[in-house]
């Protein structure tokens, strides 16, 4: 049996049969995308889905910022405003950031470890195709009687149980499906990395993006079932007469918060660890130096992941916790800054005395390092229990997590797309426009989120459609930044579509001459099937981004 240009799934099927059964390329038309088991196709599907959801969630953010442009009620009813804040958060977390990273994992992990495809290609297809239905179900709640969920993305009981609209059951089903998709994706990532690596590639030979995704996948396996448990209990409380979170029936609403944040805090790291991996690939390329402290990066990532499970109650300092509990959660939280500091130190040290150049991916990566660190520092402030009494549920929190998730996670996703897009499609984007877009976005995003620190410190609560006059100026500045930042995504859409359709053709396998990694050894654009023969140990070592010269 010849194994050139075959689908892994076809080969798997053929292993159990006696006849040859393989394709020589993708199917034509829409069925290619529905039936595909190819990791590149599925990666593309994930990335487009995430982009559509990003624009949808972004449109909701525009409604929020428009309403907050001035004090008083301008555009929408308070109930609809609450639906917007809730769905904006849920869509960005579960519909945009997480699927975007899974898309990057699908495209890159097999290419980076010299594997033919993901380990379980059919499950990969299923993991993706659950998403559009879950996303549509979540969005459909807006059009139901009583409106969509309006209790915030944290869906605290009893707001989400006793006092929630009927559409909440659809929300619960959507969360179940999104969680199921994530768990299947994580199983696939773990099985692929542990079992499908090119023979001879040791764990410590793996690129950092692969390492961060392996650890993220274990976080998903440990955290998502807890979320599934929480929404299952919500479902039974709402419909089957149980009282898990109903104090009147002997339940405990605070228990909901414990369960939610036991999922929710690792979830933050699920969204940021792959970002660390992306940045750790990009910086060595454009600093033309091996990554500084590779093994310390791996151990720091694992430490962050472990610590993420023992700090959840720092979100709950105001629920009435014993002082000993506050002290423990405060110190444990602050401990996370140690491995995070190791990472920032290593990125800066990789750049130190490097032969730096600032192509578009590098600009985004450097912006990530600086702005994510600001988000990290405000996180430290929030982790201090006595200070959190002042900051809790204010716009300071909103500013903090948007610095982490927008200028952190989202910026790294944009960096990754600008880094690997020419390899994926064989065309280079308009670099001048891409740099204009970078400066447009990076300036406006700071106008959007930085004033929110001041609003929070002055006491403006989050999740309100109206506010006191004293907060007017900073809100107006923030809204203007929001509209300008939102508009920057129109240019981003143009740059990407223009690249795919009309971009200048790139033929060199190594699109960025100083880039290292197995993905840069295959032809450009990446063929539909790659690594029919696994790469040898010499190539693996020669292409290591953390050893040798660039």
């Amino acid at each position, binding site marked *: 049996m010849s194994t050139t240009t075959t689908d*892994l799934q076809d080969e798997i099927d053929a292993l159990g049969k006696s006849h040859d059964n393989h394709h020589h390329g993708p199917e034509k038309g829409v069925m290619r995308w529905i039936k595909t088991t190819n990791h590149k196709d599925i990666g593309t599907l994930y990335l487009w889905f995430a982009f559509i959801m990003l624009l949808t969630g972004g449109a909701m953010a525009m409604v929020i910022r428009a309403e907050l442009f001035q004090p008083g009620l301008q555009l929408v009813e308070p109930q609809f405003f609450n639906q917007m804040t809730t769905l904006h958060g849920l869509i960005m977390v579960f519909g945009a950031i997480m699927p975007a990273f899974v898309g990057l994992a699908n495209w890159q992990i097999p290419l980076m470890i010299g594997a033919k495809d993901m*380990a379980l290609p059919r*499950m990969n297809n299923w993991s993706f195709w659950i998403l559009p239905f879950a996303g549509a179900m979540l969005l459909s709640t807006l059009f139901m009687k009583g409106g969509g969920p309006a209790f915030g993305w944290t869906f605290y009981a009893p707001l989400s149980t006793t006092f929630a609209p009927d559409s909440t059951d659809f929300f619960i089903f959507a969360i179940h499906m999104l969680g199921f998709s994530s768990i299947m994706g994580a*199983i*696939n990532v*773990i099985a692929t990395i542990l079992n499908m690596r090119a023979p*001879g590639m040791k764990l410590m030979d793996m690129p950092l993006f692969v390492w961060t995704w392996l650890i993220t996948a274990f976080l998903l396996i440990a955290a998502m079932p807890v979320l599934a*448990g929480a929404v299952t209990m919500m479902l039974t409380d709402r419909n089957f007469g149980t009282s898990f979170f109903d104090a009147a029936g002997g339940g405990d609403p605070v228990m909901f918060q414990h369960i939610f944040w036991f999922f929710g805090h690792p979830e933050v790291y699920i969204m940021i660890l792959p970002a660390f991996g992306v940045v750790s690939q990009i910086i060595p390329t454009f600093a033309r130096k091996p990554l500084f402290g590779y093994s310390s990066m791996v151990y720091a990532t694992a430490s962050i992941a472990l610590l993420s499970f023992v700090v959840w109650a720092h979100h709950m300092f105001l629920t009435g916790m014993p002082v000993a509990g506050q002290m423990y959660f405060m110190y444990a939280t602050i401990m996370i800054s140690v491995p995070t500091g190791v990472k920032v130190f290593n990125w800066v040290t990789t750049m130190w005395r490097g032969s730096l150049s600032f192509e578009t991916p590098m600009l985004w990566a450097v912006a990530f390092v600086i702005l994510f660190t600001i988000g990290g520092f405000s996180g430290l402030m929030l982790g201090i229990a006595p200070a959190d009494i002042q900051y809790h549920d204010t716009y300071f929190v909103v500013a903090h997590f948007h610095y982490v998730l927008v200028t952190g996670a989202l910026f790294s996703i944009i960096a990754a797309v600008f880094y690997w897009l020419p390899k994926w499609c064989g065309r280079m984007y308009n670099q001048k426009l891409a740099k204009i877009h970078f400066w447009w976005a990076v300036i406006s995003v700071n106008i959007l989120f930085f004033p929110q620190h001041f609003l929070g410190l002055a006491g403006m609560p989050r999740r309100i459609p109206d506010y006191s006059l004293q907060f007017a100026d900073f809100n107006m500045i923030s809204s203007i930044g929001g509209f300008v930042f939102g508009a920057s995504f129109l240019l981003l859409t143009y740059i990407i579509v223009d690249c795919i359709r009309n971009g200048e053709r790139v033929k060199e396998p190594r699109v960025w001459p100083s880039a290292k990694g197995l993905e840069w050894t295959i032809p450009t654009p990446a063929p539909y099937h790659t690594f029919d023969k696994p790469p040898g140990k010499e190539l693996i070592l020669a292409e290591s981004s953390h050893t040798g010269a660039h």
Partner: protein
Amino acid sequence: MISKEEARFLSEEELLKRQRKGATLTATIVAMIAFGIFFFTLYSNM
């Protein structure tokens, strides 16, 4: 993971078969862990 030495004596099909066997086992174990955590979350709140 299959070592370089082991892989040298395997055909492409045999290598894929070995990798697939390991991947299926890994996936089964990980899926069982996920189910276990789900049911433990429910059980611990009963």
